[in-house]
């Protein structure tokens, strides 16, 4: 199978599933929403067509059955709840199938069997084929000619008016009728060829009109009430209200975007090197005018590169829509496994964050939802006894709050019982009894973030594996954000994930010195190279080497950081710093990998410590100190 084609299909198909799910949500609330019904039908139709390219006959058959089911719904003008449920299951199936395709495994036997069952169920509920074929095509939601008139704005009504050939004899004036159409926005007048050869017959009506009105359908029909069957009227569905940005976007491979971002970072480094050279030129007696021009050009270049950097950072922003779209299925599955009923509400899908951040948020969100369903939401009988609505409400909402994006996961379950938490925390040795007693209720609830804490009485496969909330907090901290709890014992729990809206990711190079690992911002590094011991010359008590006819002093990072001394190896790596008055090389023991992560300011004892810019969190949760090389080597 062609991998590019498959990738394109997977991306497209996931998009279609997301769109279809959105329309299903609308239909769940308003089963007769013509626009949503139309959109859903189109999404499924396109999905079906794409699956056919990949020789997935069982999935194609399932989508075909779902599409046919929807065709009935379109004709009936509404999607009954039972049908909606089946379509939801068909979409869930499709998603599972897409996951399997992406993983390269193909559908499992279970998936195949489920898809066949669901196909049969969908087909079983359908009206007999004969009934489905009528009324004829004209009665479809909107025929092709009507769609062709539409311009996609809301409230469009298409009219086709074909007066009979004897209309003038009957005393009709079709143009007057057309003139009376409310909200006329488009009018196409066409002249049919004459019915018979011969001289022009001025009294044989040969005109037909197609019009688009921006007016309520009832008003349009009222204007045409006297012409009876000569006119057809169709309210047009609004063209999918895709966010306007989507209409003007192109898909680019994420890797390509990452590469552009990396190149821009490299450009910043190259510019720093140039700046440095210009500064050195300034130190020489020379052509002041040329120097002035170079400095102006540099300022211009700096400004433009800054703008480019900002623009590329913006390009990396993606809406949370795709992430959120994965949640309903997970919630449905989890709820089904735990025999709980959940109504999931999602909002704020348009809020955008850096692509890398969005990708990282899936796990924490999954933890929170599973916690809510597993621990927060009471079993149905308990909810009934408590007088709570049996389906629990679970809300995921994203919003922008100043410089932060807030993603809230709220349930109306039991909340966290501070007393139980104190008891558990003490029992598990997280905190001693005296300290626990001293915590107020809010602080006690925060104990769920303690490492290894699990609040469920029983450990299930859904939640309570003891890696829940502490992992959430660590992930958020790694992204430069934080987690807040709003605990309402007995009434529910709200967890807020707060993230910097513009997470600035810093690219660093990991270096080793004195047995420890540190991060050096790439932006500060002009180049890295290896220096042989015999290249080193001691000049006035300082070790130096010659680089491009310039004497460069070498400082050991180990010495700069007061780490224990050691013998220099025969060859060692150095970082030649960018910027600064004269080049400086910093000797390290080894060079490691490059990382990209948000730079976090230092807190506590290390705050304001000279020579440190901050810290970044590695993928494995360990903290790396980010060095301020310029300050250290000054």
């Amino acid at each position, binding site marked *: 199978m062609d991998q590019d084609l498959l990738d394109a299909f997977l991306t497209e198909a996931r998009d279609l599933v997301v769109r279809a799910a959105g329309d299903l949500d609308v239909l769940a609330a308003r089963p007769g929403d013509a626009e949503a019904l139309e959109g859903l039908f189109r999404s499924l139709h396109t999905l079906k067509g794409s699956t056919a390219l990949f020789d997935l006959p069982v999935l194609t058959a399932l989508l075909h059955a779902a599409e046919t089911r929807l065709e009935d719904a379109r004709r009936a003008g509404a999607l009954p709840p039972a049908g909606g449920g089946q379509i939801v299951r068909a979409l869930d199936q499709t998603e599972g199938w897409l996951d399997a395709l992406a993983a390269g495994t193909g559908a499992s036997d279970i998936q195949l069997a489920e898809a066949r069952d669901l196909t049969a169920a969908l087909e079983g509920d359908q009206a007999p084929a004969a009934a489905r074929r009528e009324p004829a095509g004209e009665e479809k939601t909107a025929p092709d000619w009507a769609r062709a008139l539409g311009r996609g704005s809301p409230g469009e009504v298409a009219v086709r008016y074909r007066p009979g050939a004897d209309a*003038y004899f009957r005393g009709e004036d079709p*143009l007057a009728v057309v003139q009376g159409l409310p909200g006329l926005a488009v009018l196409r*007048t066409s002249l049919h060829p004459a019915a018979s050869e011969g001289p022009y017959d*001025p009294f044989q009506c040969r*005109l037909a009109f197609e019009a688009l009105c921006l007016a309520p359908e009832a008003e349009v029909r009222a204007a045409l009430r006297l012409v009876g069957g000569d006119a057809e009227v169709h309210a047009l569905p609004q063209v999918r209200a895709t966010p306007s940005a989507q209409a003007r976007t192109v898909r680019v491979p994420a890797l390509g975007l990452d590469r552009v971002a990396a190149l821009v970072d490299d450009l910043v480094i190259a510019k720093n090197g140039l700046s440095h050279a210009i500064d050195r030129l300034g130190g020489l007696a020379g052509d002041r005018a040329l120097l002035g021009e170079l400095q102006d050009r540099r300022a211009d270049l700096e400004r433009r590169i800054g703008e480019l950097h900002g623009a590329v950072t913006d390009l990396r922003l993606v809406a949370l829509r795709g992430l959120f779209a994965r949640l309903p299925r997970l919630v449905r599955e989890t709820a089904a496994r735990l025999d709980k009923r959940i109504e999931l509400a999602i909002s704020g899908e348009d809020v955008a964050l850096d692509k890398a951040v969005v990708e990282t948020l899936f796990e924490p969100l999954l933890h929170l939802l599973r916690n809510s369903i597993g621990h927060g939401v009471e079993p149905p009988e308990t909810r009934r006894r408590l007088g709570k609505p049996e389906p629990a409400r679970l809300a995921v909402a994203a919003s922008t709050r100043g410089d932060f994006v807030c993603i809230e996961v709220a349930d109306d379950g039991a909340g966290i019982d501070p007393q139980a938490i104190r008891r558990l925390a003490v029992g598990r040795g997280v905190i001693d009894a005296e300290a626990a007693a001293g915590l107020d209720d809010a602080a006690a609830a925060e104990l769920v973030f303690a490492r290894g804490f699990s609040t469920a009485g029983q450990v299930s496969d859904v939640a309570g594996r003891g890696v829940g909330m502490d992992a959430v907090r660590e992930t958020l901290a790694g992204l430069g954000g934080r987690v807040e709890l709003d605990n309402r014992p007995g009434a529910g729990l709200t967890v807020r994930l707060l993230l910097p809206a513009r997470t600035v990711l810093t690219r660093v190079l990991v270096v080793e010195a004195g047995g420890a690992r540190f991060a050096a911002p790439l932006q500060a590094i002009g180049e890295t190279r290896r220096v042989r011991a015999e290249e080193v010359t001691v000049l006035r008590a300082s070790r130096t080497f010659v680089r491009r006819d310039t004497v460069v002093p070498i400082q050991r990072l180990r010495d700069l950081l007061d780490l224990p001394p050691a013998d220099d190896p025969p060859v060692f790596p150095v970082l030649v710093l960018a910027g600064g008055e004269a080049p400086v090389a910093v000797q390290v023991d080894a060079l490691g990998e490059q990382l990209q992560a948000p730079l976090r300011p230092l807190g506590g004892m290390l705050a304001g410590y000279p020579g440190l810019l901050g810290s970044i969190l590695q993928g494995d949760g360990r903290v790396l100190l980010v060095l301020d090389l310029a300050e250290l080597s000054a």
Partner: protein
Amino acid sequence: MTVSLQDEVVRLEGDCRVEDAETLSALLDGQGGRVVDVGECRQLHTAVLQALLHYRPQLIGACGNRFLEQWAFRDLRSRKIEDEETPRDWT
């Protein structure tokens, strides 16, 4: 007279009714170069519009009826503009 011929220009005036379609088509039939002045036309019956669309004469004069100008005559006017843009037609 709602439809008349003056110096090879067909004039439509006032409210042109269904029966004017016959007069108009008689004036335009086989008379390729005739121009129709709609400047004084206030309203016209579909049959009259149909005759204009059939013979497609050049229209002159701005009709005071906005509906007619915007929807009925536009097609015919656009033809006139095309002709004007071709200098050879004026030699």
